[in-house]
């Protein structure tokens, strides 16, 4: 197994085709690793052992018959925000603890028909609201690099699972940084595509104009392969974009000579931990060595991205979460006295504190008298930020910088004041507001803890981002490091 967990997806596929090992063996081995890691990491909410082995067996049959493609028989974990038919889909919440999804999310269906084998559902911050995976009804996830620390959030389970090599691939979602930030804190590669690139159908909504489904893997090369199968227009999602999906793997080998890299002066501010900055700057040096030219750019409105986000996202979530009322599915309070009691207690008991905070914030900023001052204002600031990015991308091809201000922090360290937690997203939120693709790759360590480098591009420039990331990963081996105890 130790050898298998170091392989790229391409190598795994080759090994399966060459019958060096079977998908069933692969799945079984990972399921054992998951079981062993669960008490320490708590990275998964549900393990689908029997279904996984059955799917793996079917994949083996397909491979044997010469059918199947580059992802057939490859195991993966789905963030528990994606509806998986016949399997509990909890969204990290008591509200959906008893919810068996009656359908597959489009992302799930696409990866299933690509032959991938689902091992289980990853733990996450409740309803994707959080940056540390501490708000989950199922308990916090721990960082495989140091179990006292958070893995990041909201896709903490996905990032921790891939970092600990419990699966080579985990799907994830990013609304304000929830793929990139945990990827950075766990030392793995996380990709948030352009808004509308990946279907949101079946991806339980938090903030509809910000949510995007993406992927966490050990390398850009692996991400390219999976993203290709995930992405694409979906007639069930009105916000998905009808635009062909390129073969993201085809461009990977391209040279970076002439790549214009922008460094946001606003991101290299006093909020950025000095050690983190050192690692980032060293990584940027690698890019320079590969032929990229670096220059400073400024996005004057970007410091407003956190305030804007904390109006828009709660507003949308307050409405999206109104359907959780104990009537048609999900949690219902015991013996409701009347309708009002049914609603108030079901929602009061079914949701955790952070979710309730955001619902209330959202309700407030949309209410009569406050709509213009908050919601409308935030959407205008959003446009300022999007315009800033657009202007910058006329001069540069990509923007690079830190993903997070610090490495992973202790569990419980930032839960007292929500604002301190919110400020973790300070570098990632802008890309969500503008709908831009962005990824994070490991670029060094501060002590024993990984540091992530963020790369942001213009709309639909996933190829460019993945190419740049891949080039870096051919020059360095940060992405191949495995947390001690998980080798």
């Amino acid at each position, binding site marked *: 197994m130790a050898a298998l967990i170091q392989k790229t997806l391409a190598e795994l596929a080759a090994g399966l085709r060459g019958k060096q090992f079977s998908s069933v063996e692969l799945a079984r081995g990972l399921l054992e690793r998951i079981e062993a890691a669960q008490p320490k990491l708590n990275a998964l909410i549900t393990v689908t052992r029997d279904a996984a082995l059955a799917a793996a067996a079917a994949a083996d049959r397909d491979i044997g018959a010469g059918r199947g493609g580059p992802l057939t028989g490859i195991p993966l974990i789905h963030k528990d925000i994606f509806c998986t038919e016949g399997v509990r889909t909890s969204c990290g919440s008591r509200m959906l603890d008893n919810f068996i999804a009656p359908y597959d999310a489009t992302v799930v269906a696409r990866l299933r028909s690509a032959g991938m084998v689902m091992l289980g559902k990853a733990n996450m911050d409740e309803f994707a609201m959080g940056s540390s995976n501490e708000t989950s009804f199922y308990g916090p996830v721990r960082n495989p690099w140091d179990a006292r620390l958070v893995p990041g959030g909201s896709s903490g389970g996905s990032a921790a699972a891939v970092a600990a090599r419990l699966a080579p691939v985990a799907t994830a979602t990013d609304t304000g940084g929830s793929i990139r930030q945990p990827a950075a804190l766990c030392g793995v590669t996380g990709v948030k595509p352009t808004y509308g690139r990946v279907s949101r159908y079946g991806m339980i*909504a938090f903030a509809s104009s910000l949510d995007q489904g993406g992927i966490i893997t050990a390398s850009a090369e692996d991400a390219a392969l999976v993203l290709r199968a995930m992405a694409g227009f979906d007639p*069930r999602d009105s916000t998905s974009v009808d635009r062909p999906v390129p073969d993201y793997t085809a461009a990977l080998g391209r040279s970076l000579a002439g790549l214009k890299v922008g460094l946001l002066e606003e991101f290299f501010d006093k909020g950025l931990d000095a050690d983190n900055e050192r690692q980032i700057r060293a990584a940027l040096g690698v890019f320079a060595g590969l032929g990229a030219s670096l220059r400073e750019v400024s996005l004057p409105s970007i410091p407003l991205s956190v305030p804007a986000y904390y109006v828009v996202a709660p507003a949308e979530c307050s*409405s999206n979460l109104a359907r959780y*009322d104990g009537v048609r599915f999900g949690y219902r309070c015991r013996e409701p006295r009347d309708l009002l009691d049914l*609603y108030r207690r079901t929602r009061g008991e079914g949701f955790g504190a952070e979710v309730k905070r955001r619902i209330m914030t959202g309700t407030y900023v*949309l209410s*009569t008298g406050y709509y213009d001052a908050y919601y409308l204002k935030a959407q205008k600031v959003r446009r300022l930020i999007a315009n800033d990015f657009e202007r910058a991308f006329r001069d540069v091809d990509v923007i690079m910088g830190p993903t997070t201000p610090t490495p992973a922090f202790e569990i419980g360290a930032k839960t007292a004041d929500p604002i301190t937690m919110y400020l973790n997203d300070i570098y990632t939120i802008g890309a969500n507001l503008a709908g831009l693709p962005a990824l994070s790759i490991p670029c060094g360590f501060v002590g024993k803890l990984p540091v992530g480098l963020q790369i942001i591009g213009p709309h639909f420039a996933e190829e460019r981002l993945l190419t740049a990331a891949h080039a870096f990963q051919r020059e360095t081996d940060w992405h191949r490091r495995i947390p001690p105890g998980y080798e």
Partner: protein
Amino acid sequence: MSDRNWETVIGLEIHAQLATRSKIFSGSPTTYGASPNTQADLVDLGYPGVLPVLNGAAVRMAVKFGLAIGARVAPQSIFARKNYFYPDLPKGYQISQYELPIVVGGALDILLDDGAVKRIGITRAHLEEDAGKSLHEGLAGSSGIDLNRAGTPLLEIVSEPQLRSAKEAVAYMKKVHTLVRYLEICDGNMQEGSFRCDANVSVRPQGAQQLGTRTEIKNVNSFRFVEKAIQYEVGRQIEVLESGGRIVQETRLYDPDRGETRSMRTKEEANDYRYFPDPDLLPLVLAPSFIDEVRASLPELPDAKAQRFVAHYGLTPYDAGVLTASRELAAYYEEVVRHAPGEPIAAAHWVTGELAAALNRDSLDVTDNPLPPARLAGLLARMADATISGKLAKEVFEAMWASGREADAIIEEKGLKQITDAAAIGRIIEEVMAKNPAQLADYRAGKDKLFGFFVGQVMKASRGKANPAQVNELLKTKLSS
């Protein structure tokens, strides 16, 4: 009913269910009367993770309506969420349109009782989804929710507050009802809830500029009830104000059994709907070419058709209005005239009279009419050529209606042919005169009133078949000689 000191101000909000096959945001069927929750898919149920996708036919229907009322069709309109909690609203919000609706402005002309035409402005019309239904009976302390109706497309049509009486309100409501059926965008079936009306009613002193406080009367679902509910409410408001009270702005329900409106136990309380643009839907952009194409597909509209009937067939505006109230009835009429081109006015009288009564009595729609236009035209022809009299024609009509046979066959079989032979009529007259010597003597002595008696006797003796005009003429001659 309007107190002379007070002016009534009414605005109507009509919800027309659009006659699409599938729902506005999902692929569920929209047929009425299915078993509970058998037409509610995951999108309708508001399940986690589902998303709305807009039905193009609903858009088309809204555009049709906008063009038919001369409104501006918005090149770009936005869907917004109206947020509130109620069990028949699965998502906890209704997808509607708020600041930028698809149709803005427009007007409809209504015909008042005195024959005058009044133009009623329409503020806007927008697309939205319908909610489900709650059942409160027979469930032992619970209410049962059926979401079959949730997601059915609605067009909400809002009039300007320009209606000044219950009668005007009904005329406007009927006009809208006719129009949406003409356009085939709504079946107008009020019993099934496909056409619903809320009335906003207020009063103010005559001559006052400011509007009074209004109340909303919800879901009045027949023309008759709308009229009665508004009349009651106006009376109630006047009474309150005249006794020094104030009108509470509230929602009221009409109770048809008691004939009164009463305050609804506030379902919405002080509801803040927190409208915002729905992020799951993109702006609806309509190209001019699309709007032009819909415009080209509009049928002849009721007003234009009525005007044409007046000009072409010489009908009164009133009759033209009755005939064009339904597209099918107007088409039937024109088909009858096509077969009996010399009889447009007689045709109008028979279609709006006997035919309409028979359809009503047998609860039939004109589309289920057992009397094809050509057959009715045949009857008109027999009246025109004096084969039968008007009175007997009614008997023939009933027989045609019931048996499905042609006029000629029935006339022949029943021997109803009008007697027009002067000699034959003369013989009947002479028989009657012979049988009634006393009355004859009285008449000849000067009792002119007895003329009617002799007419009656001749008609009776001829079993109604004698041509009345000839009877009159010949009687005059023979009685006087």
